[in-house]
């Protein structure tokens, strides 16, 4: 396309017009592209949700087991207007969000600290490494049962389970991030007289930050899963409790409604993490795929 514009400018000797025309054409093309993407998205959503509604109304799929979009909507409305047997939906959502949030914080904190520590100490990582891999391979979600037996039905065991799930994701990323630090950069700073503390503050941690932040996206999802599963296993409040209650009364619509609520919360948290990512990693070169969209 660029070659075309060039030859045109040379022939026509009017360098301004073809240039702006090409720009306009590009803009129109870009706009058309994004419009077609949005149309595609809407069509897909309508097809899936509409198909679900249609199949269940016609009775090809049993709505007793699989729910129905319109009834999910009804139970959503009911959850927000009438509340549940365990208090309003806001109360329960608050408890779950709180558990996930604190679990996320705890897991991230411990994961980052241990990851950086083990990543920068070869001996320690060689000693502890195999055990971490063993612990990572056991189904950690089962720990939820132990936590509930040990710490009761309160908020704490949920935070703990969420933190355990978050920990491994963040830990492995922080560890890898420290390992990937540019050794030239470390040598350079050390020669300039940096203490080990300064090396960590100026080189290791900022460099591992890219990896750590990338892990936070998945980590928050895990925090929510941890909190929900622990609530299903045993709780006095929370979305997980509502879900397990709905399961007991054969009410798939309420389960789906809870899923929708949690999805909204997760998307919101995700956007916050994105914001943080943009703030902390503004030095990174822009993603090339963004530029290719034109």
């Amino acid at each position, binding site marked *: 396309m660029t070659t075309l514009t060039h030859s045109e400018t040379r022939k026509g000797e009017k360098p301004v017009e073809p240039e702006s025309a090409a720009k306009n054409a590009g803009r129109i093309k870009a706009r058309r592209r994004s419009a077609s993407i949005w149309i595609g998205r809407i069509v897909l959503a309508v097809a899936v949700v509409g198909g679900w509604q249609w199949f269940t109304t016609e009775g090809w799929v049993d709505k007793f087991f699989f729910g129905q979009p319109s009834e999910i909507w009804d139970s959503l409305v009911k959850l927000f207007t009438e509340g549940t047997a365990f208090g309003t939906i806001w109360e329960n959502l608050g408890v779950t969000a709180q558990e996930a949030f604190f679990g996320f914080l705890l897991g991230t904190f411990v994961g980052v600290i241990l990851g950086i520590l083990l990543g920068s100490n070869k001996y320690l990582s060689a000693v502890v490494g195999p055990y971490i891999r063993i612990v990572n391979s056991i189904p950690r979600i089962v720990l939820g049962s132990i936590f509930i037996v040990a710490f009761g039905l309160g908020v704490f065991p949920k935070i703990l389970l969420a933190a355990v799930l978050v920990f491994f994701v963040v830990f492995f990323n922080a560890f890898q991030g420290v390992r990937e630090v*540019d050794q*030239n*950069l470390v*040598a*350079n*700073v*050390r*020669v*300039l*007289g*940096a203490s080990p503390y*300064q090396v960590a503050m*100026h*080189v290791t941690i*900022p*460099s591992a*930050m890219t990896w750590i932040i990338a892990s936070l996206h998945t980590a928050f999802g895990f925090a929510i899963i941890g909190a929900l599963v622990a609530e299903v296993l045993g709780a006095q409040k929370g979305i997980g409790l509502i879900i397990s209650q709905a399961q007991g009364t054969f009410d798939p619509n309420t389960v789906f409604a809870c899923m929708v609520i949690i999805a909204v919360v997760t998307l919101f948290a995700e956007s916050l993490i994105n914001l943080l990512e943009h703030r902390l*990693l503004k*030095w*990174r*070169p822009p993603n090339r795929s963004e530029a290719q969209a034109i």
Partner: protein
Amino acid sequence: MNSTPTPRPPGPPPKAAEGARIEVSGLTKRYLTPKGETFTAIRDVSVTVEAGQFCSIVGPTGCGKSTTLAQVSGLETPSAGSVKVGGNLVEGITNGVSYMFQADALFPWKSVLGNVMMGPILLGTPKRQATDLARDWLRRVGLAGFEDRFPHQLSGGMRKRVAMAAALINNPRILLMDEPFGALDVQTKAIMQNELLKLWEELRPSVLFITHDLDEAVALSDRVVIMTSSPGSVKDVFDIDLPRPRGNVQEIRHEERFLELQGRIWESLKDEVTRAYAVSAGAA
């Protein structure tokens, strides 16, 4: 970019304007491989760099040139032999040293200004002074106006300029350069060589400069050290008596004396390069 004496803030090392004499004697470095075998990288290397001298080390790939530099900087400790800088034995990190690598070791998350500032900041200079000093140095390497850019927004040559400013801002007694211009294209390389020579002539640190490029070594240096293939040791030392200031690096290449020296050094280097190549080809 003439050298008008601008009122510079007091630089951190108070009396470091003079380069320091580097004496490497009988230096041997052995590494332990993970399997427990020892590998001798350099054997019995002895090199002397006079204060303020520009010395190049040339040798085949993998002959331990970088290892030698690491011992001089104090990042590693020798297995045998010693390194003296300014008469003092090197133990731990040597004072007043700056490093420059082939890959520009810049902080990708710091702005250009932040990168250049690192040297004084690590020495405990107050931030205001460090900023002023860094701005001054960016001007000296011709990057005024680029203070707020990030390294990825600069071209390869500009990144090298930043690295150069960052290496020289502390007014080092010793400048260790590990193939600093190896990754640059030919034109940029020549520009950077001229730039380096100009700054070196202002500050006169002692320089140990590793390169594969014989032309580069002869054009820049006072002394060229040829190393043998692995394990590395000193094969020959040539003193380059081309007059200083050298002027344009590209033009000096056509002078008769340059070609003569270059030819003699190549004779010495040729055998080592062929041997190193034969070994690596045999191993592959």
